[in-house]
């Protein structure tokens, strides 16, 4: 079955990122397809490549990165949510004249159409909320 996941909570701040990651692992282990993970609201902070969590805590960014590379996942951060929260790639940094960018390389910035597309084209949309 084809799943899509939407993540609303910021990493560490809310459990939703941890739960979404665990759920993604489980569905892939069961042989299902993960069509897309769409990061919305504070979920976009998951895309930041410059988080430095304590060494005895899960490194969520590395976890998403490893999972995405292993399974060729489509990890999308919502552009509107991300811009106002300061999660940007090089292109957006240039466009808005910001001195740095922080989006990790396995994440892409895209519009809300990607959420709607996932809702319409996946068999199941599972949202992890704050």
């Amino acid at each position: 079955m084809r799943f899509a996941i939407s993540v609303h909570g910021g990493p560490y701040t809310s459990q939703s990122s941890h739960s979404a990651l665990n759920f993604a692992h489980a569905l892939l282990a069961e042989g299902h397809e993960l069509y897309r993970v769409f990061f919305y609201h504070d979920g976009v902070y998951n895309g930041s490549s410059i988080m430095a969590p304590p060494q005895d805590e899960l490194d969520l960014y590395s976890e998403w990165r490893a999972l995405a590379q292993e399974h060729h996942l489509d990890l999308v951060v919502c552009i509107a949510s991300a811009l106002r929260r300061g999660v940007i790639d090089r292109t957006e940094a240039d466009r808005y004249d910001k001195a740095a960018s922080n989006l990790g390389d396995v994440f892409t910035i895209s519009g809300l159409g990607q959420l709607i597309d996932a809702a319409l084209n996946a068999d199941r949309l599972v949202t992890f909320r704050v």
Partner: protein
Amino acid sequence: MILHTINKPPSHTALSDCLAAMASDDVMLLIEDGIYCLHEVAGDHRAHVLREDLAARGLSGQLPSELKCLDYAGFVALCTQAEKVKTWA
């Protein structure tokens, strides 16, 4: 059949909102801080709890015997059995 997830304790409205919106053949899964609702849903044949979140909160020993306990693989299976997922937070 709809799968309803709840991730807030009884002090929030998530549980009562969910119960008011559930059909008799829907199912419910307590996740995250929704685990703390376990006593309130005891006896409801539609209720399930997520094992990992239950253990994290130290309540494995308090699980009412009639409540169905699932791991993440069971959560995924429940999603496939349901037509869609509604979340209450």
